[in-house]
């Protein structure tokens, strides 16, 4: 009997011939990412009583969640992170001028297919877009990894999502993942790995695959992944990854006779734009069901949808148009690298001329820390990944989640409209 990609990977890392779902294995991950929470993790690490990281080369730190600091307390937090990074000799450190952690890891060549990546951030599965086993962990677990280098994992069952056909021109990967979450709900992939495959995935950009894997946590998954193809390798090589560093293809794909717990088949060609309605991500409806909902803020950015192609969609819609006078349109490129490209291509100019506000790379208002918190009674439509009550910093506001096209079209109209007619 064959194994899935995740079973193979955990078996290899646990130095076993095979593993089965439900089994607990001890694994040494290749990379452990932490962000603004690094100072808090340091305090936990100190309680263990170890002075130095066992493998400083496996630690990676990005300042992105509250960057740049907007209060003295946040500034103190960042200062402590910088001191710790210097003291421990952590070379993979990205200060506030680089971007969102998941984007930064990929852009800087840290993500290699077949490897195990963990991070004290729930959206760590984003890196699964490159055929990596990437999963979120807690702060204490990072502290323990710094001290020992190893951690326990439960071998997950795998859900296979086969997406047949092609997405229509005005339908995006975000619509696809929202549709899936709406179908199987917030716990539909609890503790599971999710394998994405099929014609629509083969045609999908790397950015789109990142959007899919990013949101697997919103259906409870441990990780999501797309096995690497030529498109993956080309992208990685452009970002400094040497193909010879990766394990052979035998380790990167699920076996023909692998056992999947469930197979979900989806026809991409009939999919319509989707929106996730307040206050849960799995409260998904077709955009057509909420057309006319007034909005006061639209937000395009985050680790889910702040990449170049997302910004390009917005710029194309905004060409020659103006943001509605009652709407604030906030745009945050996922990284400084994306920011520069969007600037060179004229996208940012188009957005600013239309009345949008382009902010510095980082997590921004996604989890309500700063820079775009909605007022009481206001509605924000966002390309982010969560719309829980209070998520954007105010429990008296409402958040809708949608694709960059739907968000931008709403910013122009002042209300949710069908993006198919706008693009």
């Amino acid at each position, binding site marked *: 009997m064959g194994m899935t990609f995740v079973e193979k990977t955990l078996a290899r890392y646990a130095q076993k011939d095979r593993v089965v779902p439900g089994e*607990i294995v001890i694994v040494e991950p290749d990379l452990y990412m932490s962000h*603004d*929470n690094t100072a*808090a993790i340091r*305090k*936990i690490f100190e*309680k*263990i*009583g*170890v002075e130095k990281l066992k493998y400083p080369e496996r630690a990676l730190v990005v300042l992105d*969640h*509250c960057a740049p600091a907007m*209060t003295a*307390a*946040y500034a103190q*937090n960042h200062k402590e992170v910088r001191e710790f990074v210097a003291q421990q000799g952590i070379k993979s450190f990205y200060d506030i001028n680089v971007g969102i952690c998941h984007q930064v890891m990929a852009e800087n060549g840290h993500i290699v297919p077949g490897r195990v990546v963990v991070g*004290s*951030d*729930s959206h760590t599965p984003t890196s699964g877009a490159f055929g990596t086993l990437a999963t*979120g*962990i*807690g*702060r*204490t*677990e990072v*502290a*323990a990894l710094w*001290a*020992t280098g190893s951690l*326990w994992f*439960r071998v997950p069952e795998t859900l296979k999502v086969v997406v047949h056909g092609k997405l229509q021109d005005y339908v995006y990967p975000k619509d696809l993942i929202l549709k899936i979450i709406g179908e199987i709900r*917030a*716990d539909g992939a*609890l*503790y599971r790995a999710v394998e994405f495959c099929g014609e629509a995935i083969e045609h999908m950009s790397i950015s789109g695959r990142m959007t899919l894997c990013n949101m697997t946590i919103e259906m*409870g*998954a*441990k990780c999501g992944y797309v096995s690497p193809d030529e498109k993956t390798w080309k992208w990685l090589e452009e970002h400094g990854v040497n193909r010879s560093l990766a394990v052979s293809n035998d380790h990167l794909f699920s076996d023909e006779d692998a056992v999947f717990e469930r197979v979900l088949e989806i026809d991409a060609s009939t999919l319509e734009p989707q929106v996730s309605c307040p206050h*849960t991500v*799995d409260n998904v409806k077709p955009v057509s069901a909420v057309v006319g909902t007034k909005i006061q803020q639209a937000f395009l950015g985050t680790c889910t949808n702040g990449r170049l192609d997302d910004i390009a969609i917005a710029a194309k819609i905004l060409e020659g148009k103006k943001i509605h006078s009652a709407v604030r349109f906030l745009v945050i490129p996922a990284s400084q690298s994306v920011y520069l490209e969007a600037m060179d291509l004229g996208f940012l100019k188009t957005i600013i001329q239309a009345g949008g506000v382009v902010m510095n790379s980082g997590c921004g208002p996604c*989890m*309500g*820390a700063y820079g775009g918190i909605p007022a009481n009674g206001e509605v924000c439509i966002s390309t982010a990944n*969560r719309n*829980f*009550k*209070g*998520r954007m*910093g105010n*429990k008296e506001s409402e958040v809708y989640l949608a694709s960059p096209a739907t968000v931008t079209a709403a910013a122009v109209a002042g209300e949710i409209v069908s993006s198919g007619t706008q693009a």
Partner: protein
Amino acid sequence: MISGKIFKYGDDVNTDVIFPGKYTYTVNDPEDMVKHAMEDLDEDFVKTVKEGDVIVGGKNFGCGSSREQAVTCLKYAGIGAVIAVSFARIYFRNCINQGLPVITLKPDEIARIHRNDAVSVDFKHGTVHVGDHLFSFPPLSPEVMQILQAGGLIDYTKAKIHHAN
């Protein structure tokens, strides 16, 4: 063995309502975290919670962010165990790593538990007493149990390093 009263909630209780994200990088002291526990879900929680109380949820308890404070704030508020039909994966790990016991019961069993019911949990025998009801819960895997019994991942790791030396 712990005993107290029940706080009962529904399905998909997420980490943003247990501990809002806006406090994530500025509230670092566990005693201060307690002040914001359940802030966006249940304003009475902080006012009435006592040592040994138990939280009961439906399916997918603790979904959302990886923030560990969503466990720490409950533990320092005095919560002795969290019972649910199922737990979100990272939340489950965070509970184990913080030494806060997690218990899974069946949906029909959860349905018979109500807010403010008197509860006692016997970890040794794997039973929960709520009013006249007695429920048994399945044991955790031995590896996970070792971490919980050590008082969490920090004490477990300390012991492991000490043993290796």
